[in-house]
């Protein structure tokens, strides 16, 4: 595990986001707070529509017209991004915080050469003086992510899915950002390619000592690349802790359910649990804990009031009835490594 500086590079405090829709405001993100240390990686997991990508968009301040930040701070290296003007924010973006997009195919502009799109970012932030220097830098980045620099003069459609994803990672590294946000970067890829990309991403992140926020619905992937993990449900962060702790002993029933519904190829074949019901409509969320309609442990207070944080070491969960170690779903002792 990486050593982590004391001073967090990114601090998110009480972040809340609404989308204004015909049905009224939808609370996509509600009071989310977390910290990210230098060189640390934080995973955000949850099902689609739980607000993971909205958080990424809030951090980059790339919200659609109807998105409205209602509260919170995003403090990057001591500067609250939400207080900056649009023009000031523009200089912060990519220079200090970059993003690896979900669909690499679509994140590259089809009409420009891939190298050109990296050079463009370098130009916009004045990281290099001349085109030649910028190209030199892009070539270095290409090598770093395992791409042949000769491919810089190709167009995105000439790349395979894995190559495109690598190019997008290279692009994110163009200005030496302090934090990169990876939003489901391997979702559309096959497992073997995914494995390589993950390894490269992880290696680069550790080599450059960047903070990384890794967003995914696949807890297997998150378990492999992150130091800490945050579980999201219905726009809320419901559990946060060191990855190993959360997997060994989840505190929130939702985290436990998520893990026990995850099929695994290794170890004994455990019974898959089905989480009943559907995630709530965020335009009209249930009172109290948003998970209570689907939770087996729900009591009256769960229905009434949003739960406080229950702490256990560096791990916490927003739950009235946090689970203790005995409830561990995945017993690590059972897991025989059948491959290695």
């Amino acid at each position, binding site marked *: 595990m990486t050593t982590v500086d004391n001073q967090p590079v990114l601090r998110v405090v009480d972040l809340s986001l609404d989308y204004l829709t015909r049905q009224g405001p939808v609370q996509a993100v509600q009071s989310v707070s977390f910290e990210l240390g230098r060189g640390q990686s934080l995973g955000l997991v949850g099902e689609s529509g739980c607000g993971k990508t909205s958080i990424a968009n809030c951090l980059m301040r790339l919200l659609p017209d109807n998105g409205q930040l209602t509260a919170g701070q995003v403090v990057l290296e001591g500067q609250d991004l939400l207080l900056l003007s649009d023009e000031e924010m*523009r*200089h912060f973006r990519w220079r200090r915080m*970059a993003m690896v*997009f979900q669909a690499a195919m*679509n994140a590259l502009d089809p009409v420009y050469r891939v190298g050109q799109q990296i050079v463009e970012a370098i130009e916009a932030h004045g990281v290099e003086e001349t085109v030649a220097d910028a190209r030199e830098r892009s070539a270095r980045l290409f090598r770093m992510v395992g791409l042949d620099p000769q491919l810089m003069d190709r*167009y995105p459609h000439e790349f395979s899915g894995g190559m495109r994803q690598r190019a997008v990672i290279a692009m994110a590294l163009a200005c030496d950002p302090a934090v990169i946000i990876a939003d489901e970067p391997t979702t559309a890829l096959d497992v073997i390619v995914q494995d390589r990309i993950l390894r490269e991403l992880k290696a680069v992140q550790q080599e450059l000592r960047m903070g990384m926020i890794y967003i995914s619905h696949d807890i297997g992937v998150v378990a492999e690349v992150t130091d800490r993990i945050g579980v999201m449900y219905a726009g809320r962060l419901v559990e946060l802790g060191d990855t190993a702790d959360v997997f060994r002993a989840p505190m929130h029933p939702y985290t436990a359910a998520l893990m026990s519904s995850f099929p695994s190829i290794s170890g004994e074949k455990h019974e898959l649990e089905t989480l009943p019901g559907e995630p709530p409509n965020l335009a009209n969320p249930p009172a109290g804990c948003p998970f209570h309609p689907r939770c087996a442990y729900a009591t009256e207070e769960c229905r009434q009031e949003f739960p406080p944080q229950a702490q256990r070491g560096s791990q916490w969960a927003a739950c009235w009835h946090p689970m203790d170690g005995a409830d561990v779903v995945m017993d690590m002792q059972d897991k025989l490594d059948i491959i290695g």
Partner: protein
Amino acid sequence: MTGYLVRRAGQMALTLFLIVTLTFFLVQAQPGDYATFYALNPDIPAEVREQIKASFGLDKPLWQQYLVHMKNTFTGNFGVSFGHFPRPVMEVIGERLPRTVVLFLSATAVSFYVGFFLGKAIAWRRGGVLEYAATISGATLFTAFTPAFALMMIWIFAFKLGWLPIGKFLDPLIWRGAEVSANHIFSYMLLTAGAFVVFAFLALLATRKIGRFGTGRVPVLLIGLGAVAIPIAWAFTGVGYLALDILRHMILPIATLTLISFAGTMLLTRNSMLETMREDYVMAARAKGLPEKVVRDRHAARNALLPVITSLVYSLIFAIDGSVIIEGVFSWPGTGLTLLEAVRSEDLPLVMGAMVFIGLFSLLAHVIVDVLYVYLDPRIRYH
């Protein structure tokens, strides 16, 4: 790429062949006999009539006439015009085609530029006053009754304000003592314009090779310089005032044609922009911290351009039709006016000739658009 062009040229030849066939049989199908039109024309002497009959095979059966007609068309022999006797159709059209091309090309270029510029602006700031104003005025002009609108333009700018000539190609009073013909001056004007376009293109190309950031203004400067130099050069030739007269006659028809056709491009660009603005690469461009103008122009608008270019074919056809009407109203002696006159005077050889050339013209426009698209979309360019 070359394979594509060859294929496209083949298709074009086939389409042209079909257009010629179509006009031939339409003329045959109309009530009345083609041969008797020649026979009844009092302008044509009897021996010439016989000669024409023989060269067009008018006394032979229909299918042989068709073959002769095909051969004649593709060797450039469209026969003799009734109305302009004894000038051959080819000569009449050869004189008038460049005038149509100029009218059409300049109007198309200006309206495309204006339409694209406005379209991307109203999409980028959606829901503003500009959008309502541009949409309503654009759509009204686009669907306006062209002849009435053209007459209104003449009434305002030529009659009431007296700024511009009423119509036609030139003012005979100015040209009375001139030693050069209008066609001569006009062809030199065309040459100048062509040279300027080449120069502008080279200027763009050259600055792209410099390889330093922030050289975007250099080509603009160069092109501006060229634009100033040209009138000065013409002033020294001594016939500049004649060229100016032709130019003055061009302004109103071009402006009218531009006004009625820019909205097509504008509204298309708007929709296309609204779609590309949702694309991830536009979001990515923003995330990269590029200035808004760069995001809009280099990413959103550049991609929005592609479907607009595809639909440019329709706008071009619209503009060709528009120029036929505009030429009619402004008495601008181009192919469109020729067609109208020929139709009115039942000058059938000229009708066929003009129709074939208008068809050829729109086919060429079609092919140019296709090539442009291939050039602009790397996904197709490299396949």
